[in-house]
């Protein structure tokens, strides 16, 4: 890499970081200029988050050299990072929901007068900070009343202050809708024009095309390439995965068989109304719709997690008792929930334990769990799914997002459900692991099982489903075959519900 010139704000050279023997970063080189958006691209587990944590002062590197504005530095704590002008937005938001916008902005440095918080000044000072990220909200409002996108803007506003020269954003768009993402990308462009250097992590190649100036690709903890903004998607994927991926959506449909899952007239006041659909053996049915259309609510109710007011759910012709997860499981239904960490994994437990969660009951004889058998099956599943781990005893918390998702899916595959519901199975998962998950879907349906695929990723729903059910405002707005479906047609259904309601009224 070139010698740092006056435009360089941050460099990292030969950064190496080991965790209990595993090499997380291996001789990584990275350079950030003033007024550029520099994307860090790589699969889950490639070392992006570790590099971010090194810059944020959360981890100190074992080897290597960091400079800020040409001076060598040691970033020993988050506090030190902030003092050096490095602001980091982590994946998880760190706001206090009960406090006001202004209080969150000044958390830890509330303006005080005679030892008492100066509320008037705090509210006044909040306005320019909010302006900088283009957010128009009342600074006195509690943060919990705001949407996730607005909360993220507040997080950014808080991180920025006058001497911030580096802003690191770790997958900020993963939780945002399309319009919210647009807004964020605009703000990023604005900050770039103000001379801030931005480090941006995202899995959406489309966003990279729109905003990136340069791209550094990480693979297996190494910085393998630096690409210019115009690099082709194909080239980026090749660099990231280390091989070329033939097909992004390798769906192989077969002849659908008998109906395995029938949802009929499912209704819960205020959440969803009169939802009906069928899933046949060997079929993948996609459920598309805007965020808040009620998709997750419907599948959770069908699986017995939440109650519903009326309607029925049948699996293999047998009606399920409402609100009974175990009855749904016995009938052959499985659910991979949307929120991996919150609902899918036991982060304090090992990979092996997590893989055995669903089958633990059936592996129990007279109260005793057959742990040897559980472990053997977990081992087989881990290698079948190619989970990247140092062993079954590794804590699942230490795995990357994509590998964690494989564990959640794996625990269900071990139970061999007849119908598996996947709710946003590839969110925050890298390209390579995505294709592996798609192959799993193919294998399930080839074996006569069925998959209900809930996803906000339209190309994914269209590419991997056989039929698509589109939901809007808690209702089924329409159903269409995936073959020949376009994003426009699905979107048209997803937003048209009001008109339908008016016509039928």
């Amino acid at each position, binding site marked *: 890499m070139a010698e740092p010139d006056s435009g360089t704000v941050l460099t990292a050279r030969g950064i190496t970081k080991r965790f*209990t023997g595993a090499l997380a970063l291996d001789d990584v080189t990275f350079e950030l200029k003033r007024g550029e958006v520099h994307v860090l691209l790589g699969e889950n587990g490639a070392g992006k988050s570790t590099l971010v944590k090194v810059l944020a002062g959360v981890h100190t590197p074992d080897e290597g050299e960091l400079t800020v504005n040409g001076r060598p530095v040691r970033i020993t704590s988050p506090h030190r990072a902030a003092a050096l002008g490095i602001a980091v937005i982590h994946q998880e938001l760190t706001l206090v929901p009960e406090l006001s916008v202004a209080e969150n902005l000044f958390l830890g440095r509330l303006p005080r007068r005679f030892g008492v918080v100066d509320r008037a000044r705090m509210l006044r000072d909040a306005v320019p900070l909010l302006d900088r990220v283009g957010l128009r909200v009342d600074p006195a409002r509690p943060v919990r009343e705001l949407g996730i996108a607005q909360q993220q803007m507040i997080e950014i506003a808080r991180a920025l202050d006058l001497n911030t020269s580096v802003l690191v954003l770790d997958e900020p768009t993963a939780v945002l809708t399309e319009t919210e993402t647009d807004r964020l990308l605009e703000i990023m462009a604005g900050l770039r024009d103000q001379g801030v250097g931005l480090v941006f992590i995202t899995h959406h190649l489309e966003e990279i095309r729109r905003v990136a100036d340069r791209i550094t690709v990480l693979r297996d903890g190494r910085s393998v390439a630096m690409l210019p903004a115009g690099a082709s998607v194909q080239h980026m994927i090749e660099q990231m995965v280390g091989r070329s991926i033939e097909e992004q959506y390798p769906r192989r449909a077969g002849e659908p068989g008998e109906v395995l899952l029938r949802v009929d007239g499912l209704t819960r006041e205020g959440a969803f109304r009169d939802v009906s659909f069928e899933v046949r053996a060997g079929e993948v049915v996609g459920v598309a719709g805007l965020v808040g259309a009620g998709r997750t609510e419907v599948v959770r109710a069908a699986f017995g997690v939440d109650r519903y007011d009326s309607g029925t759910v049948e699996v293999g012709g047998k009606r399920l008792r409402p609100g009974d*997860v175990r009855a749904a*499981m016995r009938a052959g239904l499985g659910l991979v929930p949307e929120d991996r960490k919150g609902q899918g994994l*036991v982060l304090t437990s090992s990979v092996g334990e997590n893989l055995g969660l669903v089958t633990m009951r059936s592996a129990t004889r007279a109260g*005793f769990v057959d742990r040897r058998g559980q472990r053997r099956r977990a081992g087989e599943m881990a290698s079948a799914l190619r989970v990247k781990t140092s062993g079954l005893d590794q804590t699942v918390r230490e795995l990357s997002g994509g590998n964690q998702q494989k564990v959640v899916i794996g625990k269900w595959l071990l139970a061999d459900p007849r119908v598996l519901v996947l709710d946003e199975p590839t969110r925050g998962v890298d390209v390579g692991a995505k294709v592996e998950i798609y192959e799993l879907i193919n294998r399930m349906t080839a074996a006569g099982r069925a998959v209900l695929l809930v996803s906000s990723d339209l190309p994914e729903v269209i590419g991997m489903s056989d039929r698509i059910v589109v939901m809007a405002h808690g209702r089924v707005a329409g159903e269409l075959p995936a073959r020949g479906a376009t994003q426009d047609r699905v979107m048209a259904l997803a937003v048209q519900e009001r008109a339908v309601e008016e016509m039928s009224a």
Partner: protein
Amino acid sequence: MTTATARRGPDWRRHASENGALVALIALVVVLAVLRPTFLTTQNLLNVGVQAAVVAVLAFGSTFVIVSSGIDLSVGSVAALSAMVGAWSSAEAGLPGPVALLLGLATGVVAGLVNGVLVAHGKLPAFIATLAMLSVARGLTLVVSQGSPVATPDAITFLGSNLTPHLPLPLIVMLVVFGLTALILNRTYAGRSMYVIGGNEEAARLSGINVKNQKLVVYALSGLFAAVAGMMLAGRLGSAGPQAAVGYELDAIAAVVIGGASLSGGVGRAFGTLVGALILAVLRNGLNQLQVNPFWQQVVIGVVIALAVLVDTLRRRSSR
């Protein structure tokens, strides 16, 4: 991150870092043995064991609760109530000793089940539900006893006796209950579920674990173990006292936490708890042997609890 590699250091180092409490216990014993040669006599070590036994048995019950991310503040009171019911059934109601013993155990289970119902079905925070039970059980103990100690029947006194001069039964009970706890935690469905519920209750539910029922099991076990501890204590003294085991719940929790369990759930082992209880007993015994002022002993024990958890937290942080 690389794929499968041997990534840990030598075995003894791993064991030392995983069993920080054990290292501390050994260090404590060595120091005391050097300062007071009488510490290592058989008689004194047996004393330490007997002193540890009651707290250890309470703490094994608390291990289930803490692993599943709950807390049980009532174990001291439940221990006293169970022993009192056992003693009263024999001395006042005239029931045969073994029946009285079983009634005592049943009392513990019922108290635990009430805790469990309040927590699992009533959605009360465990802290509040068991705080209420702490008060109710202590009050019932006073009601039953009318405020005076009640003599224990032979069946209960036996629990506190010595089989031979060098074989106190409480020591054996402690080891048996330890084995049982390890077996439950490591091998049974109920035990494995405790780790899952403590680690992530929602994931447990979505994986088909009946969280409510499993919580009932957890608190019932805690109540049962409290009853065993209570009767062991009463048996040792020959009578069940209305003020027996006051404050023991805190020693039990301290033992579990010193043993490496996390109050946020999902982590904890039977062996750790055993070591934790032994550390508390060795420390008390050692401070007595060194003739440290009893008022200062409390200060020392408090400092040790804080240090144990602090060291553990720092070690975990540096290994991540």
